[in-house]
């Protein structure tokens, strides 16, 4: 007991001696970093290092390595799977102040940026040059590029453009041992394994990314957004499958169901048809000929699937209005009940109707009405259960329903997470999709990067797997 304060002081001194100016030790300040957007868990870190430079990150990791302290990197803390929840008594390394665009290279269509840069700020920065950064998770107004890299974030426009890993060309990584490596770069091919691709989506468990080389995508010359309403969920889901099967790959293909639409209309008045059972937002982009043909094809398929209404946004203002409700969905839902549990699964697109029907039945069996707002084109479901933590048993029922939904999605050939990550939330469910040999390989890879198991431990992999 007498050694503990002595050790804490020694650690603090080491941080300061390494040149780190901002180390938070005050319990009130640290408490802010105890959780992220995941409702399941929280833990109090002993220290929070607010990095002001990449050198601070390296220094902080080296101190952690020396003292055998677990550390957790943190961007905006919007992770919904618990990826930014620290280990009790460990260290949070905040990257929020590393938020600069370091260098834009338009000739090679890429930019080096810092991990704390907010996703939207990157696109705003390059917009004057006619470019944008394609991955746009729903949290894009607050979430950071570093966090997006850690989770391999997706978003509505990933259907045609791909997820974060398709847009990260290179990165600088501080290994848990304190070594710094650069992986990938502006050229197409480098010798050796694609460790860049392995690090993206590794949830901070392989080290801390201090610089990211992102791909910049030219803005499309033409863009059309359709809002299509249906009187039945089954018709809407069948239309999604038919659009894909017809050979159209829209840039976005989003679905919202009736409970979700009602909430959105009630709270943000996006002008959606609130009496519809389901609404699709479909966006096509490219050259005018392709855009016109695809928009027409989508509308025709929708009508053939009994669409009640097809609205076409023809100018940027209307388009923004159609997206506004979708983007505001989670904020609106928060007004319904104090707590919500947002899920993330991917199923083959052809199984959408069946899986959605079963999700609704499961939720109703537990006394909930699920809200669905999701990336239908990818088969990426986000069933959402709203509940009140103060109501006895509600939280437990929400968890139980979530577990049953998980099993249904896996049984339909789906996977555990499409874009939110495994984190703490789903780590113990990993054996549902991966066998012991797969998990052992993952554990050994973790060991190759992090022999002491300091980088964001107890995330992503189930706890019982032996090294």
């Amino acid at each position, binding site marked *: 007991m007498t050694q503990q304060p002595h050790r804490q002081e020694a650690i603090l001194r080491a941080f300061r001696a390494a040149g780190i100016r901002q180390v938070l030790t005050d319990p009130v300040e640290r408490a802010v970093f105890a959780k992220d957007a995941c409702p399941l868990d929280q833990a109090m870190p002993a220290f929070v290092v607010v990095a002001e430079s990449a050198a601070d990150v390296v220094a902080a990791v080296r101190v952690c390595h020396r003292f055998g302290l677990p550390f957790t990197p943190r961007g905006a803390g919007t992770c919904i799977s618990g990826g930014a929840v620290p280990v009790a008594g460990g260290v949070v390394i905040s990257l929020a102040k590393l938020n600069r665009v370091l260098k834009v*290279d338009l*000739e*090679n269509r890429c930019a080096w940026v810092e991990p704390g840069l907010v996703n939207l700020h990157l696109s705003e920065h390059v917009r004057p040059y006619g470019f944008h950064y394609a991955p746009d998770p729903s949290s894009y107004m607050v979430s950071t590029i570093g966090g997006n890299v850690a989770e391999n974030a*997706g978003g509505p426009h*990933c259907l045609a453009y*791909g*997820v974060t890993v*398709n847009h990260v060309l290179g990165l600088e990584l501080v290994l848990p041992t304190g*070594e710094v*490596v650069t992986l990938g*770069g502006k*050229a*197409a*091919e*480098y*010798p*050796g*394994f*694609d*460790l860049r*691709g*392995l690090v993206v*989506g*590794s949830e901070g468990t392989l080290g801390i990314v201090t610089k990211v080389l992102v791909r910049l995508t030219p803005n499309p*010359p033409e863009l059309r957004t359709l809002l299509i309403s249906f009187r039945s969920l089954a018709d809407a889901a069948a239309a999604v*499958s038919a659009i*894909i099967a017809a*050979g159209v790959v829209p840039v976005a293909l989003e679905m919202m169901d009736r409970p979700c639409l009602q909430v959105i209309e009630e709270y943000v008045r996006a002008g959606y048809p609130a009496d519809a059972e389901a609404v699709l937002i479909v966006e096509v982009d*490219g*050259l005018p000929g392709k855009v016109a*043909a695809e928009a027409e094809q989508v509308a025709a398929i929708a009508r053939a699937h009994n669409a009640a209404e097809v609205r076409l946004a023809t100018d940027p203002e209307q388009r923004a209005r159609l997206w506004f409700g979708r983007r505001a969905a989670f904020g609106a839902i928060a007004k319904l009940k104090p707590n919500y549990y947002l899920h993330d699964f*991917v199923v*083959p*697109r*052809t199984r959408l109707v069946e899986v959605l029907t079963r999700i609704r039945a499961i939720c109703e069996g537990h006394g909930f009405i699920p809200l669905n707002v999701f990336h239908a084109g990818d088969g*990426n479901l986000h069933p959402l259960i709203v509940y009140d933590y103060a109501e006895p048993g509600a939280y437990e029922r929400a968890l139980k329903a979530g577990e049953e939904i998980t099993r249904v999605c896996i049984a339909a*050939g*789906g*996977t*555990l*997470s*499409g*874009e*939110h*990550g*495994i984190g703490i939330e789903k780590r113990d469910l*990993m054996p549902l*999709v*991966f066998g012991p*040999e*797969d*998990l052992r*390989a*993952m554990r*050994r*890879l*973790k*060991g*190759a990067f992090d022999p002491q198991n300091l980088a964001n431990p107890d995330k*992503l992999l189930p706890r019982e797997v032996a090294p």
Partner: protein
Amino acid sequence: MAVSADLREALAELVGPENVLTGPETLLYAVDGIAPRAVVLPETREQVRELVRFARSRRLGIVPFGGGTKLGFGNPPAAYDLALATRRLSRVVDYSPADLTVVVEAGLTFGRLADLLRREGQFLPLDPAAPDRATVGGIVAAGLGGLRRAFYGPPRDWVLGVRAVSGEGELIQGGGRTVKNVSGYDLCRLFTGSWGSLGIIVEVCFKVFPAPPKSVLAVLGLPPSADLFGPGLQLWREVPYPAAILGLDPASAADLLGAAAGPGGALLVLFSGAAADIEFQLGRTRAVAGDHAARFGAVADGELAGLWGQLCDHPQSVGRDLPVWVRISVPPAGAGAFGPDLTRGRFLADIPGGVINLYTDSADPAFLAELRRRARAAGGSLALGRAPADLKGRIPAWDPLPAPELMARVKGALDPDGILSPGRLLTA
């Protein structure tokens, strides 16, 4: 080479005597002039596991062998006891056109996969050379981008899942069958481009796409001694959505394009999509070409299919009879600096991809070392795609690896005894 009867018998027990080759046929599987002691042709992934476990117990070096079209890459194997040929693992496991996914075994040739997809109006834009021999396992293991890489992405962007047998004989699954997946470490990216050094790929799930309704290739014949790269980059900036922009040396341009080629070689620009858009794109291309090209033409339909096949097959069509294939990969804006060096041979350049395939008969290691130094200084790399064994002995097939210790630890995590493609990528 004498093979112990014992080895032959042991292998026959694992895969059946008809699936073991030990005679002169092993010479067909030679890598850098080294023939394996035996060739095994497993028919199931279970047999692949058994073979790897057996090899591990005897410390035998294994090189996985698909169509043998890319084995010119890499350093000579440090140990080459077994060639593990995948061609009898060639089933289509599951094709779901409505989901835009296909699952196939590693030994299926790309040509057969492409035929299957074509019947459903779909495609996979990987553009391998020799598609009738190149296998999906080999394409994924090499991870090399095709000619439409800048527009469609390299193989890694099309691989949704991989099953591979590790150096410990474990069957490992990376990814899955859904288009989005962030469950656990992305092992399929790790296997993609690992050149058989981390596992033997036995099954791949690809994302596929609807085939574009129409494609047209604009051909810009260039005047003598013209620079290809400046105009190529200008086209990339000024014409929306080119599916490929290629540069071809004068001799190859004359061979492949006949009268359409210019004395200074040719720039080729591929457009795919709606007919009205292609008209617009061709118009823009012609406007840009006006400043640079001596001739302007367009190739479409059946003629384009034949020409495109020859272009993809550049190691044979452009590189015919030339023993050295140098693959330079740099940030696209830096590729033009290599223009003057390219007179040393024939070449095909993917301009927005920043990849130059130079074919030469110059076996001068000093020239290659200088090119490599400059490629690295430009932020890129240089690999040998093929070279006589004595040249490979004098210059490494790859640049020094980035983060070599970390790479070695990753290798050790999946192949602790170093039996998979030993010495080909990582030299001990």
